[in-house]
């Protein structure tokens, strides 16, 4: 967390997962400025008073954060001793992440590292000195946990990838530094333009990595797979069959499921959250209507949709579904002999016929998703994503400097900053690392 302990930091401070309420905290000198750009309310923010309002911003969809409570604590009268803003929002993991992601785009904010809020509380004297050991243990534990994580395959691969990116950057920097520190010697220096290709490659990798982020989050939280279809198409029956238990109530009555029900199963070693949704149809019943709304939300957040069709039911595919992978299922094959074309799976919940095929298809889809990623790496932590967003921007700056024909010392300054940013994941690159490269690669010295 050192050496930049006066930066403004942001984090979700409620436990991960799906809860009714989540709190996102911003601490540091820019806390109040930042929230003023997002929060609108009839009342003004008054220190230590909870204020009800909306979050509005170009980066947020309309109506996404309509019910928020923001509390501002003026430093030093806050838990961190700095200006602190607490944003309470409704909603699950998706909305929390979305808000965090948007806040991290605000200038000057960065993701808090493990234990950083607690550490600041301690530094400001908000935590009694007698608890110093407890704070130390907490930070130690979190740091250790991070290290332990690094040993698991996922983050291990991330580390390998970041190390290889660092190595490439160090190599580029070495070319520049050798020219700056040993220009009085007989070395053939390549021009900075020679760095355009390797740097562009690094930037492409960073971009590909960032593209894995959304999916990476889902791997952590579970891949969301709603069963969607017209009322009475047999979604709840299929849901129960896939779970292997009677979780949803099944009746012959169309529109029985009015709320969404979700339950996790494990497919190909990954957590899949199956969601039973209300059937999509025009309805007058208020309860059913809100069920339909919720179904549409689920479709919006889905990673994969199981679209359930049945004889005599018409399922109109909602527009939201166009970009989401889907498995089209035709249910109740035992009832009719004439089966429509263009379905992926034909099955019967009543006889169980075809169920294996659906499971296989589900498995294949999940495995396909897992194979995405860069070098086996998908980003799943907001902190890592924050690092790569800044890193990509800094590499772009390097490329601009080279194309703008700035001197090597300025390009080197840009590159060092990029390395420092990557260093937030794997540890700092020191001048000695660069000098070692120079000494081993060039014959320097008179």
């Amino acid at each position: 967390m050192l050496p930049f302990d006066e930066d403004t930091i942001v984090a979700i401070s409620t436990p991960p997962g799906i809860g009714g309420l989540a709190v996102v905290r911003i601490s540091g000198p820019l806390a109040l400025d930042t929230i003023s750009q997002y929060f609108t309310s009839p009342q003004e923010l008054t220190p230590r008073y909870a204020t009800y309002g909306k979050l509005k911003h170009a980066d947020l969809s309309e109506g996404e954060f309509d019910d928020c409570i923001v509390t501002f604590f003026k430093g030093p009268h806050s838990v961190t001793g700095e200006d602190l803003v607490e944003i309470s929002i409704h909603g699950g993991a998706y909305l929390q992440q979305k808000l965090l992601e948007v806040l991290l785009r605000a200038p000057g904010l960065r993701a808090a590292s493990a234990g950083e809020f607690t550490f600041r509380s301690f530094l400001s004297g908000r935590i009694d000195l007698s608890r110093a050991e407890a704070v130390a243990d907490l930070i130690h534990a979190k740091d250790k946990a991070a290290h332990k994580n690094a040993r698991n395959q996922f983050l291990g691969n991330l580390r390998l990838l970041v190390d290889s990116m660092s190595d490439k950057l160090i190599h580029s920097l070495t070319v520049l530094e050798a020219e700056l520190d040993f220009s009085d010697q007989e070395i053939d220096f390549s021009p900075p333009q020679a760095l355009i290709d390797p740097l562009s490659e690094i930037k492409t990798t960073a971009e590909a990595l960032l593209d894995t982020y959304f999916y990476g989050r889902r791997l952590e939280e579970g891949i969301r797979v709603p069963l969607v279809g017209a009322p009475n198409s047999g979604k709840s029956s299929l849901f129960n069959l896939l779970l292997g238990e009677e979780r949803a109530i099944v009746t012959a009555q169309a529109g029985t499921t009015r709320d969404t029900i979700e339950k996790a199963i494990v497919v190909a070693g990954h957590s899949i959250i199956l969601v039973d949704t209300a059937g999509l149809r025009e309805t007058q019943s208020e309860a059913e209507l809100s069920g339909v709304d919720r179904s549409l939300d689920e479709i919006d957040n889905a990673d994969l949709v199981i679209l359930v069709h049945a004889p005599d039911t018409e399922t109109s595919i909602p527009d939201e579904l166009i970009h989401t992978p889907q498995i089209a299922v035709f249910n109740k094959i035992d009832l009719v002999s004439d089966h429509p074309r263009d379905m992926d799976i034909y099955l019967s919940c009543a006889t169980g016929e075809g169920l294996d095929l659906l499971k296989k298809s589900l498995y294949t889809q999940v495995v396909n998703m897992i194979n995405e990623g860069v070098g086996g790496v998908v980003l799943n932590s907001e902190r890592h994503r924050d690092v790569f967003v800044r890193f990509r921007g800094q590499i772009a700056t390097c490329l601009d400097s080279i194309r703008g024909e700035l001197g090597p010392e300025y390009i080197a300054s840009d590159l060092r900053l990029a390395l420092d940013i990557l260093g937030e994941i794997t540890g700092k690159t020191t001048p000695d690392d660069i000098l070692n490269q120079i000494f081993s690669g060039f014959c320097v010295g008179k």
Partner: protein
Amino acid sequence: MNVSRESFDVIVVGGGHAGIEAALAASRLGKSTLLITMETKALGRASCNPAIGGLAKGHLVREIDALGGEMAKATDQTGIQFKMLNRSKGRAVWSPRAQIDKKAYSSYMVDVCTNQQGLEIYEGEATSVISSNEGTKITGVMTRAGRAFGCEALILTNGTFLNGLIHIGNESFSAGRIGESASVGITESLVALGFETGRLKTGTPPRIKRDSVDFSKTTIQAGDQQPEPFSFSTRDFDPPNEYCYITNTNEKTHAIINGGLEFSPLFTGVIQGVGPRYCPSIEDKVVRFAEKTSHQLFLEPEWTDANQLYVNGFSSSLPEEVQLNSLRSVPGLEKVEFIRPGYAIEYDFFPPSQLKATMETKRVKGLFFAGQINGTSGYEEAASQGLIAGINACRSIGGSDPFVLERSEAYIGVLIDDLITKDTDEPYRMFTSRAEHRLLLRYDNAHFRLAEKGYRLGLTEKALYEDVENQKRLASKTETYFNSTYIKPEIINGLVETQTTVKESQTLANILKRPGVTVADIQSILPNWVNDLSPALLTLIATNTKYSGYIERERQQVERLSKHQTMSIPDTVDYLSMQAVSFEARQKLDKIRPETIGQASRISGVTPADVSLLIILIKKIVSRETR
């Protein structure tokens, strides 16, 4: 020479580049000072190459000057060729270098030292340190002749003399430099006080007879036509511009060297000390970079009218015969004759993690180390340390706050911080890449950065300080003018060549920021009061303006640094018992025992999480102690 008293405020042992700056600083700060040297006329002798400055080293010399040191002035007075390196690149990495007349340089320093009020010189050899309080406080120094001197502060600048051992081929013999005795006893007396010591190696090339060289086969290298002085006080600068000569080794040279490796103390394992990778011997270059068929050699004059040249690039400890035969295969050197062969020297050093940022040892109060004794190489690195040690020796006597330069303030700050927080395993040399705030630490703004500090210390002359203050005012006024003066597009298009025509008015600052545009391009539209500024000042201002984005970014990085950087760590801290801190970090911290959190954070193997834990544990310890 007669010494008037038995006891001094400050005693400096050694009259090299570190010792001179230390002794001059101490005496100029009003302390009675004794300089102990084996030979007065050897003061300021350049043991190796006849040059001062160079990449990053030139920055150090300018900083020494801004702080009131002597090296820059001596170089301006005795330089015989001046050259600005990296001129094709940005100002931050320009660095001045000069060939010096070694004899004139040394006599200049002898003159300055012997005429310095408050400074006395004793010719002799210091053989042990004298301490009290069970070896925790320095009280004096003993000499070979049996005469003891008392002091409040002792600065050791023994260079390569401590148990120096010279190697030429299979021969090795005790010496401090060729023709000068080694110093024996100091190392042993320090080890008895508990200091850790190690061995390093360095080398020097042969000196050859000028009249044995066929210069028609070499390339002439001259200095700048319009040389810039090192010192901010030098006026009417019109130095000589003597030539150096370039030639190259070839495959035949390398074959002869390869044939002699069995007699190389470097390759047969006789030399135990670690040498510098940036200054390898010719045999090392030939072996490690076998694919290179040629290496450049520079023939540099050692002094004006000397029949003696320095063969830069041919440092060696091969037998004299192998050196001579291989050199005779080089164009222009077919009939070369030696004045003396190159040699390697091994010497004792004291790992500088045993020092505080003031150059005082952590172990013994009043004892300071500066220069090669700390494992550095280079005249400029030595002089920088000597100056800081001299200043802090005086301040420790008077009970004043230590004088420490931050990494963001000066290359000298980077140098000393690196020394005390790193484990040096080879002789340390300054490089611009060591400075993370390189764009702030330019050679041309050293006086802007440091003259005021030097003046407040009592070293920098008042005239220079006032001149700098005046320049700062002018710079600030000019920068404001550049940022607020808009120029019409038709004027801009007539002045500077751009890929696209400018359509809107722009500030002078923005015009200067365009790639390739220099202040010379816009001089015709600048008012007289700007054009009347000295060229050096105008260029400095233009550089500030041109790269203001980068300068501002580096400044912000400095400001972002934790305020805990300067939090001091009590020296009673028991790192080994800090279970929460990683094992590697605990061991490193225990060995180096940093003075501040900033220093701790720069020790390799100490992670940010470790530093946070350290802060927590130290706050707890401090609160317990003050209770």
